[in-house]
């Protein structure tokens, strides 16, 4: 049932503001893809465009090679789960889920008994059996979310679209639902695109992630690929915590105040660039000649790990580094820093 989705050079402008700028993206049948980006990056606009709730100023959206513009909303068969679920408040759960089936023209509408059977199967699937007579107002946030999902699944969607599916839920429910949604996707195999601004959600749930910034796609790849091999400074900075240092390329190395921190790859000498390094890629030791040195400002505990803020002369923001449990540093101590894996990008 699920189809592949292709987005070709789509553009969307809102009163002089470019929400989507030549965005192209392929989603394989049965794939679970995350659109990740900060607010205003265009991710929801792209999702609405795929759904047919908005139109592109240029470019095409294709379902299995068919231009979506040649299809009506009904023919597109998109299951859309809205951020605030948009449940029909005056209808009971059963009527909400049955809405899409009952709205079909009489030629393709299943008979009453079949609708009833399907709604109950969906209630079973989203683990809400027994709640069909409730009104949306009588459900918890997580339950509403699942009703919205069941309602979208009822029309046997070719593509399932979720707008910030966990945005309105508290942290614990969010964790549970994330695992549950992954299971559900593995069971049903719908081509699914979801929008999120939470990198943990995207990394933990999606097969692939498309990272958007200012209406452009910065990078598309598996969670491992985008996390371990970011292609731009934005991707590096957006996926998890990172430190950045201004560097200049000299003798084939990225240098910061005279220290060669990393080889410069293909960048020519004289280039100004930015070096990104994650806190756990900084190893702390006693200061030694040839090591970048700094002073520990303070140390804080984040669950199982300890974090130090280290002041470096010539850098306004202190660097964040992880401290191994067996190393005894105190605030005020001078430390030497050795960088592990780091990324160098030119210009932002």
């Amino acid at each position, binding site marked *: 049932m699920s189809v592949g989705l292709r987005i070709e050079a789509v553009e969307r402008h809102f009163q002089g503001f470019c929400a989507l700028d030549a965005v192209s993206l392929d989603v394989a049948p049965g794939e679970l893809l995350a659109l990740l980006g900060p607010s205003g990056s265009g991710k929801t606009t792209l999702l609405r465009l795929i759904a047919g709730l908005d139109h592109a100023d240029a470019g095409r959206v294709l379902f299995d090679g068919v231009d979506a513009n040649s299809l009506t909303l009904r023919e597109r068969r998109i299951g*859309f789960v809205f951020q605030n679920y948009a449940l029909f408040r005056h209808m009971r759960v059963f009527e909400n889920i049955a809405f899409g089936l009952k*709205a079909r023209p009489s030629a393709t509408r299943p008979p009453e008994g079949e609708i009833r059977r399907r709604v109950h199967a969906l209630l079973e699937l989203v683990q809400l059996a027994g709640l069909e007579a409730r009104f949306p107002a009588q459900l918890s946030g997580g339950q509403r979310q699942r009703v919205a999902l069941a*309602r979208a699944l009822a029309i046997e969607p070719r593509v399932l679209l979720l707008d910030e599916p966990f945005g309105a839920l508290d942290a614990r429910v969010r964790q549970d639902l994330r695992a549950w949604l992954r299971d559900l996707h593995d069971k049903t195999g719908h081509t699914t695109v979801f929008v999120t601004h939470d990198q943990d959600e995207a990394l933990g749930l999606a097969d692939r992630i498309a990272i958007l910034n200012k209406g452009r796609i910065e990078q598309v790849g598996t969670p491992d690929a985008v996390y371990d091999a970011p292609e731009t400074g934005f991707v590096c900075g957006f996926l998890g915590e990172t430190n950045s240092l201004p560097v200049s390329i000299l003798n084939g190395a990225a240098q910061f105040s005279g220290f060669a921190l990393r080889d410069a790859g293909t960048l020519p000498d004289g280039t100004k660039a930015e070096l990104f390094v994650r806190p756990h890629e900084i190893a702390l030791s006693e200061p030694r000649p040839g090591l970048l040195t700094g002073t520990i400002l303070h140390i804080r505990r984040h669950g199982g790990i300890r974090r130090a803020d280290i002041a470096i002369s010539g850098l306004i923001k202190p660097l964040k580094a992880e401290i191994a449990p067996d190393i005894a540093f105190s605030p005020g101590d001078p430390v030497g820093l050795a960088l592990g894996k780091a990324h160098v990008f030119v210009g932002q």
Partner: protein
Amino acid sequence: MSEQRPATPPLPPRERVGQEHRLIRAVLIVVVLAFLSLFLFMPLATVFIEALSRGVMPYRAAILDADALAAMRLTGLVALVAVSVNVVFGLAASWAIARFDFRGKNLLISLIDLPLSISPVISGLIYILLFGAQGLFGPWLKARGFEVVFALPGIVLATVFVTFPYVARELIPHMQSQGKADEEAALSLGASGWRVFFRITLPNVTWSLLYGVLLCNARAMGEFGAVSVVSGRIRGVTTTLPLHVEILYNEYNAPAAFAVASLLALLALVTLALKVALEWRYREERALSR
């Protein structure tokens, strides 16, 4: 061993927020009650007392008088048409304003409120100027057998004009606050435009629509100024209830005037009761849907 401390009473706060002096409260309440009784309760009571001053039989006679009955029928008919027209107009206007962005939207919102700021007499005169014997379209229509002014169409037109903000004004903020997500959800589920309207849009605004209809109806039945200009006061033919009251009063038939007026007063009381009931239901629904 704990040391026994002398119990010191807590110092009373110098100021308590929201706890104004008792005297101020009492004065305010008395002022409000006095104002209400002077301007609302006493006149309302007077209507009923005057109406029944000569006993029940004259009251019955005044109400069952042929002209009074004709006025009731006319008032009901005018209100029915005006409310229906304004429900359609109000839904269309609020839909357009809440769902679409277009040039001149703010102007449209201001224009909808226009009848509230125009004196009803002017509203009536507009129709005389347009459809009267010397009016713009009057002679043309008259030549084809259509009487607008001093006839039912004129009364309906004037009433529609005066009452058209009421439904739209209730619906616009409600529709705007609800956003369009519900409708988009229904559309993406494959519902047709009509189905979305009747199954989603309309049920979502039921209460504010009823509230608007109630206010619109009360105003339509009670409208005096605009209607008095266009009606021509042909007794038993173009007199609505408020006009009938005035005619009786001008004929020094105060008991009959008050008898008919008591019907309008009753309408006001029923409207008030329904309004309170609707607000209750509506608030409950609002609380549930949050």
